[in-house]
């Protein structure tokens, strides 16, 4: 089992140039921020269930750049249909990493469906993803680093993490600021 903060920091230790990252709301966004803020990070504070689809729209708009969606099991479950939508589009530059502690961590640690029978990599495979796997140790995280620059996706990773609490690490909450900053990193103007 992985410690989430250490796992995300390791995954992004050699962040490829040009990598675009979308983080689902809650602890995955804090994990991404704690690993190092970056103009090409887009943190969600709401829009639960939307992270993977933001990643898809972005991946289709920027087919020459790799896109990583980093989210949690609860957020991924709320947008489960997005896996079917992504499977139909088959964006080679998209990779989704689900930090799976099997619980809704922000709301009192109620068990989520990944504790109750849903196997997200199997769902992704059934939806037509190019690959999907479960990782449980830091060796596997290090191996994933090599896939960030060229995901050969769509790919989905279920990273099994502990459910222990982590210190809060809060990125900016202003969506307009985050979006403008993100677009500027791509050379796009405001508005």
């Amino acid at each position, binding site marked *: 089992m992985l410690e989430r903060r250490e796992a995300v920091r390791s995954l992004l230790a050699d962040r490829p140039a040009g990598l*675009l990252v*979308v983080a689902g709301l809650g602890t995955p966004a804090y994990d991404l921020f704690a690993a190092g803020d970056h103009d090409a990070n*887009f943190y*969600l*504070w*709401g*829009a*639960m*269930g*939307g*992270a*993977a*689809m*933001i*990643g*898809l*729209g*972005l*991946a*289709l*708009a*920027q087919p020459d750049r790799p896109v990583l969606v980093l989210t949690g099991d609860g957020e991924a479950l709320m*947008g489960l*249909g*997005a896996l*079917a*939508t992504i499977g*139909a*589009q*088959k964006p080679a530059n998209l990779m989704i990493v689900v930090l799976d502690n099997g619980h809704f961590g922000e709301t009192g640690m109620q068990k989520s469906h990944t504790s109750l029978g849903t196997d997200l990599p199997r769902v992704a495979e059934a939806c*037509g993803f190019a690959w999907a796997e479960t990782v449980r140790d830091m060796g596997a995280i290090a191996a994933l680093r090599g896939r960030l620059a060229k995901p050969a996706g769509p790919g989905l990773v279920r990273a099994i993490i502990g459910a222990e609490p982590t210190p809060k690490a809060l990125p900016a909450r*202003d*969506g*307009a600021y*985050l*979006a403008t900053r*993100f*677009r500027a990193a*791509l050379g*796009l103007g405001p*508005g």
Partner: protein
Amino acid sequence: MLPTSQGGPALDHAVPADTASAAWKDEVFAALEGAGVSQVHYVPDAGHATLIARAHAHPKMRAVPLTTEEEGVAGCVGAWLGGARAVLLMQSSGVGNCINMLSLIRNCGAPFLTLVTMRGEWAEFNPWQVPMSRATETVLEAMGVAVQRVDRAEDAAETVDAAASLAYGASQAVAVLLSQRLIGRKVWK
């Protein structure tokens, strides 16, 4: 066979018949094309069938069938973050599915254009379409989306063109409601 710009065999089925085929649908597509739309996210509706088929066939457009409409709200924001222009096609019942996801548009100041075919308002046969139809405009406005309604075929393309300018030029959220009278009655036989 439906010509596809992407997708697999699942999309290679016969084009569903439009409830009414008319030149205004081609003109609306031309307005989207002229606005530089490159991603067309949709939940199918017979009233959008022409646009959907055209989008799949267009070499510079990506047509994205959704499992539920709020996916398209998020998809359009992702497209914008990446510098592309996207549109969401849905019917009025789908507007209700989008409510919370529209927070994303407001918080980010993202442009948003959706074309909504109305059900439940004109010669509707199915009462289950009526409640969301009646709430469509209210819901959109409550979430900060400007609503422009088209009742006459001759206004359709111009309204979509103007809505696209408002959305992509002034970074506004705009919904164009295509009335059920315009779309035509659904044939139940």
